[in-house]
């Protein structure tokens, strides 16, 4: 089986903010090709790998994990520094002194500016730097920046991956490439299994902005069942979500709420119970902010469920996950995919 930290590091390292996922999608297809009967990048840029089942009349189950990450986009040049907007939601407090990779060819490293304390009043010292005061320092003169970095050039956090303790793993774009890795692990484990379904692993694009990849990809694949894999918030010392108790290391979280079709959700739980896989429960009372939101209402509507990977510090360059949760997510996928689901779909 693949070495998980190596796989995570390799996928995390590829810059791919929403709308600019080309390189990461290409790599995703390379990784899926030996594990599937067919793998390609679709018309919208999604990476799609199909492993056909061994039985005729198989259902088609699509497992989606998004390949895009949050990032930045250049909106202008001032005194040689890049003015920028964010792609997806980014806490402005993460930005001062932050290193980024500007996605030119070859890439250009940059540092997001911060203001020295002497410039500010006592009261201002307690406040976050206003977003509009921050720029990306690329170290060039004005003319050179204008020439080298056209407006519209994207950028991502410049951050490597590293283990934290024995089980945790930290890096950028764990949201959601870690979940894509869970899909890859599941495909590996299904290689010589009697598979009752056609299984599609769909690496989606633009999840962080408008879920466009999930919407178009699901339409094209016309699945019988959809499963979205995404990250969810795990507890941290500064609170985390007050009304959940999701923790790192407690196993993947099964979603409850209107975005989840109960019978598919229950089939996931039954599969976990049958294989003694620890799971947590996560309630999403409305919009789930995952690919499942679009998948559920694709075509005439598709039975859909969400499986989440607990994560600390989402949308930062140090998104932290548990490797054992990730492996358990893959195990649960395998358990779910090995079972027949004709009845749940027919209901």
């Amino acid at each position: 089986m693949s070495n998980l930290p190596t796989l995570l590091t390799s996928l995390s390292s590829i810059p791919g903010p929403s709308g600019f996922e080309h390189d990461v999608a290409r790599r995703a297809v390379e990784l899926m090709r030996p594990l599937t009967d067919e793998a390609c990048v679709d018309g919208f840029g999604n990476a799609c790998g199909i492993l056909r089942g061994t039985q005729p009349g198989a259902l088609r189950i699509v497992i989606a994990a998004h390949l895009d990450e949050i990032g930045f986009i250049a909106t202008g040049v001032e005194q040689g520094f890049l003015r920028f907007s964010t792609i997806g939601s980014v806490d402005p407090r993460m930005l001062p002194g932050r290193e980024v990779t500007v996605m030119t060819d070859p890439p250009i490293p940059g540092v997001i500016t911060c203001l020295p304390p002497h410039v500010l009043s006592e009261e201002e010292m307690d406040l976050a730097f206003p977003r509009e005061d921050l720029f990306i320092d690329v170290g060039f003169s004005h003319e050179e920046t204008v020439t080298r970095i056209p407006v519209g050039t994207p950028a991502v956090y410049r951050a490597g991956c590293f283990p934290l303790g024995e089980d945790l793993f930290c890096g950028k774009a764990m949201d959601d490439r870690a979940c894509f890795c869970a899909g890859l692990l599941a495909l590996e484990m299904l290689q010589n299994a009697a598979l009752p379904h056609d299984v599609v692993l769909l690496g989606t694009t633009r999840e962080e902005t408008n879920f466009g990849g999930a919407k178009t990809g699901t339409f094209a694949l016309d699945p019988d069942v959809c499963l979205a894999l995404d990250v969810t918030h795990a507890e941290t010392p500064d609170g985390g979500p007050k009304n959940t108790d999701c923790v790192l290391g407690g196993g993947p979280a099964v979603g409850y709420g209107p975005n989840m079709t109960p019978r598919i959700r229950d089939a996931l739980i039954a599969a976990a119970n049958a294989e003694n896989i620890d799971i947590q429960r996560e309630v999403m009372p409305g919009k789930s902010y995952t690919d499942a939101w679009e998948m559920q209402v694709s075509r005439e509507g598709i039975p859909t469920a969400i499986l989440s990977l607990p994560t600390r510090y989402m949308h930062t360059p140090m998104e932290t996950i548990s490797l054992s949760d990730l492996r358990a997510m893959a195990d649960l996928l395998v358990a779910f995919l090995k079972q027949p689901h004709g009845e749940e779909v027919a209901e």
Partner: protein
Amino acid sequence: MIELIKELCAVPGVSSFEDEIRARIEREIRPHASDVRTDAVGNLIAFKRGAKRADHPLMITAHMDEVGFIVKKIDDKGFVRFAPVGGIDRRTVIGKKVLIGKHRIPGAIGLRAYHLVSAKEEKIVPDIADMYIDIGAADQKQAQSLVSIGDEIVFDSDFVEFGDGMIKAKALDDRIGCAAMIHLIQKELPIDCAFVFTAQEETGARGAFGATFSIRPRIALVLEGTTAADVPSVKGHRRVTCAGEGPVLGVMDRGAIYDRDLFERLRHLADNRGIPWQTKRFIAGGTDAQAIQTTAGGVQVAAISVPVRYIHTSSSVASIRDCHHMVELAEAFIHSVAEDPGAKSE
């Protein structure tokens, strides 16, 4: 010189935890100095004979310590609570990678996810006392087996050359000065010089007092890194200095008024050699000069500083040209003092 800055920046050396950086520098300078010793506070002092003997050697200093943090507490869930060592703006530490203690245990300074933050909360920066470092420990006991109260915490940040001759690293303040001194000590010198790699500058120029007391110079030259705020959202004098526009000649800062004659000497030396220079447009910061100047009977002190953007963060930025110009000017200064000490007291 740039390769040397890169190597020095990679070594941890939070104030009072200077053992590693001192050993690294000592390895570089030992073959070139006639006497090398470490004093009680941890300063590394290297004496080098010059062509001309001096009763009071010319003292040249750069501080080898860097800003960082120290472990204050390991909480009941296994997260590390910490305090800054030296002047660190807490707004610049959120989400940064750090290394803790001698075993360099990796950690990340956490902040709850943006999705869980209110519009009001995102404008407020948590107090340092409320921040925490995640080291991936399952519980307090496991955390205690990895790190201890009192351990030093250093930024983990690589060295990058980027843009038009710019460099990015942690601790450019003042490993640039250290690299400049290592470069100078390898040369044939015209006069006896004492090179001091000071300890604990960042906690109040604590090392420089003792070193100056034991060396008893008449003239001292401080090689430093200083604030550059030449970014688009800062205007006019508040920019303090501009990276790439030449080394900064010390006139006055929050700790010292520099010797006017030595300032004029540096200015003329720079002008005669076509070396660009600037002065601070805003009185901010301080250097070892404040300690050196007032030690024993008093010392005439001058400073040459390289402008550093985002100083005291994990990602400080400086111009390579400024570094080279600092060394060139410092060397010219040594020769000038050899020819004419011009010391005010004999």
